[in-house]
């Protein structure tokens, strides 16, 4: 019967549609190196130019074509890498640009190919950038875009008041009332500072205390998976909260968590903390309405001398392939790093550039870019970013506790112990699920 046959055919076609889903895979060795990255805007343009230059020069010679795919912010790239890995290594890119939040997952994954295994020559890479990605498994990835936390300030305003950037949070609490402004009704029209510190900022505020403090054990998770929170019993988070509360109590700190640089550019806050990688973007957004200054971040107290850690991104490799090695070495070469640094504000990771006349001339003309470099050189290289599971949730928890303390009068000891419990629970959960 014809009707029956049609039905059977239809059912069969459904099956045929399903099977290729599981059988799909990428074609091998066609000279294409896939690279997932997280650079958009100013950074995206600079990155695209770098990749295009590779494809038309070195890549053309050696028959390699880099296919750069923008996959959203760094944590989106991580999400996608993990999703791709869960369906098998064939859907992974050859290289992915990830940040510190990825380190723990990558370290414990079986699909990561270490730069050492690829034989990538990282001898010219700046030591603190190497340190920031060093683990008990060795170097996890090739540093590409190194940045650090910077204190951005409205230099025009500071100069007009005869003020210099604060050296400690206590200094800041003294000058904040001068920097802020209220209208006749007592409403704040300009804050001294806007933003709520989260994991990244606390990496410096806590990490710098007593020369070097870790947030969690195993050297912030670099020497094994962390299983114990340290910022509670060592009193470092409490110390930070006490000084931060003093600053907040001046009434000139705005607890906002989004659009901070928009507020800064609009002149509604005199200062903010942001990554040095935002420098070009911030200067563009301000558009000459006032002079943008950058400075070392204020220390938590006099004894917080550790400085800042290196953040930013690195190139994680997922295929053992000579082509991947070529691409990675190209990305950290002097020429590429110079171009990248000049156009974005990232610190060049290639130490060969530090006495390069071209780079020196650039710094001469753009003194704001020099500060990040100087701050890093003045920092203890052992101060490193913290590698935590559930990084996203913990990020929010820090902000929530800081807000509870500053706005809602929550007891500082209580806030510290709640925060310790949150992080400890995440560590325990991770250990239970991944370390047996």
């Amino acid at each position, binding site marked *: 019967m014809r009707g*029956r046959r049609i039905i059977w055919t239809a059912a069969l076609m459904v099956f045929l549609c399903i099977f290729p889903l599981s059988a799909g895979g990428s074609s091998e060795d066609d000279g294409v190196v896939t690279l997932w990255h997280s650079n958009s805007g100013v950074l995206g343009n600079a990155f695209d130019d770098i990749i295009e230059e590779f494809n038309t020069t070195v890549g053309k010679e050696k028959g390699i074509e880099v296919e750069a795919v923008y996959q959203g912010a760094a944590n989106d790239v991580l*999400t996608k890498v*993990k999703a791709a890995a*869960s369906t098998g290594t064939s859907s992974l890119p050859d290289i992915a640009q990830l940040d510190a939040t990825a380190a723990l997952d990558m370290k*414990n994954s*079986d699909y990561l190919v270490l730069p050492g295994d690829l034989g990538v020559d990282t001898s010219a890479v700046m030591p603190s950038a190497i340190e920031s990605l060093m683990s008990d498994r060795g170097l996890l990835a090739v540093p590409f875009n190194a940045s650090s936390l910077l204190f951005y300030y409205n230099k025009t305003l500071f100069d007009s008041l005869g003020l210099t950037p604060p050296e400690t949070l206590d200094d800041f609490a003294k000058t904040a009332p001068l920097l802020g402004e209220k209208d006749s009704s007592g409403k704040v029209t300009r804050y001294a500072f806007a933003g709520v510190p989260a994991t990244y900022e606390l990496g410096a505020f806590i990490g710098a205390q007593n020369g070097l403090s870790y947030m969690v054990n195993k050297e912030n998770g670099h020497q094994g998976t962390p299983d114990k929170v340290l910022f509670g019993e060592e009193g470092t988070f409490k110390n930070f909260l006490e000084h931060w509360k003093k600053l907040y109590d001046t009434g000139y700190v705005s607890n906002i968590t989004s659009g901070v640089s928009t507020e800064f550019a609009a002149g509604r806050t005199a200062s903010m903390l942001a990554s040095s990688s935002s420098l070009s973007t911030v200067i563009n957004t301000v558009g000459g309405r006032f002079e943008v200054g950058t400075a070392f971040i204020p220390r938590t107290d006099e004894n917080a001398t550790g400085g800042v850690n290196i953040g930013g991104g690195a190139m994680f490799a997922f295929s053992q392939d000579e082509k991947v090695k070529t691409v990675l070495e190209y990305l950290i070469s002097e020429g590429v790093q110079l171009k990248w640094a000049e156009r974005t504000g990232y610190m060049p990771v290639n130490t060969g550039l530090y006495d390069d006349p071209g780079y020196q001339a650039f710094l001469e003309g753009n003194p704001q870019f020099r500060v990040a470099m100087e701050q890093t050189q003045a920092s203890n290289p052992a101060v490193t970013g913290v590698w935590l*599971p559930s*990084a996203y949730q913990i990020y929010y928890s820090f902000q929530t506790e800081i807000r509870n303390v500053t706005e809602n009068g929550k007891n500082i000891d209580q806030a510290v112990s709640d925060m310790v419990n*949150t992080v400890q*629970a995440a560590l325990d959960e991770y250990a239970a699920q991944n370390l047996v």
Partner: protein
Amino acid sequence: MKKNERNAYLFLAPSLVLAVLFFMLPLAKSFTGSFLTISQSGKVLGFAGLRNYAALFGNPAFISSVANTLRFIVLFLPLNTFITLLAAALVRKKEKWTRIPEFIFLTPLALSLSALALVFKEMFRGSVSIMGRIFSTDVQWLDEPFTAMAVLVVLGVFLDFALDFILLLAAFRSTDRSILEAAEIDGASGARMFFLIELPAIGNMLSVTVLMALKDAAMISAPVMVLTEGGPFRSTETVMYFYYLEAFRSGNRGAETTIAVLMVLVSVLLMTLISRRRRNV
């Protein structure tokens, strides 16, 4: 008839295969997984009993995400119902002029969810936002827990409006004329006519749209992801967004499977209510 029955199953076969493959099997896997300890790479490490559930309910962030979702539902549901019903009621009698508002009311259907969320994000960004100008205020909409939730609710209404509007309008227009005419002859008019005759006549469809909106509200995640990312201070972190963070960002299989099981239970309950209602439409 035996042969008819067999043909019916044959016609159903493709859908059944797909349903089993893509819905029932994953569901069963999630369900069993919620009682196991599974590593991030998917390896089963052992039996967990109720440990995953205990960890979930002991997590303050999860509890607050449930509270946020309930808060969203309480704000969203009445507002959404009222506005869509009002819009449908105003243009329920087909006349020449109603084509224009009908067209306008349907436009949200043409916009993708994330595009609309991005537009909202730009409209309400910072203290110098477009909305700030329009209302001449410098409220930082997305940086205050209450206003951020309010913006999310308005966005939610925008997203659900068009579909609910179509359904309600269709129900109004397909109401049996003879009932309305009989009521008219009996002297009913205006508000009495609307509340006592027309509204009860579309009652079933109204409850379907309410239940659908309830389901959408309970499952809201994508608008949160684009608009607020759960902020400020977790005040808009809904259950499904929490699920996304745990499952896809943190790779926490315990939370992933337990929330999936709980949410399936909730939505099965809602869908049962909806299909009960629909049978009567």
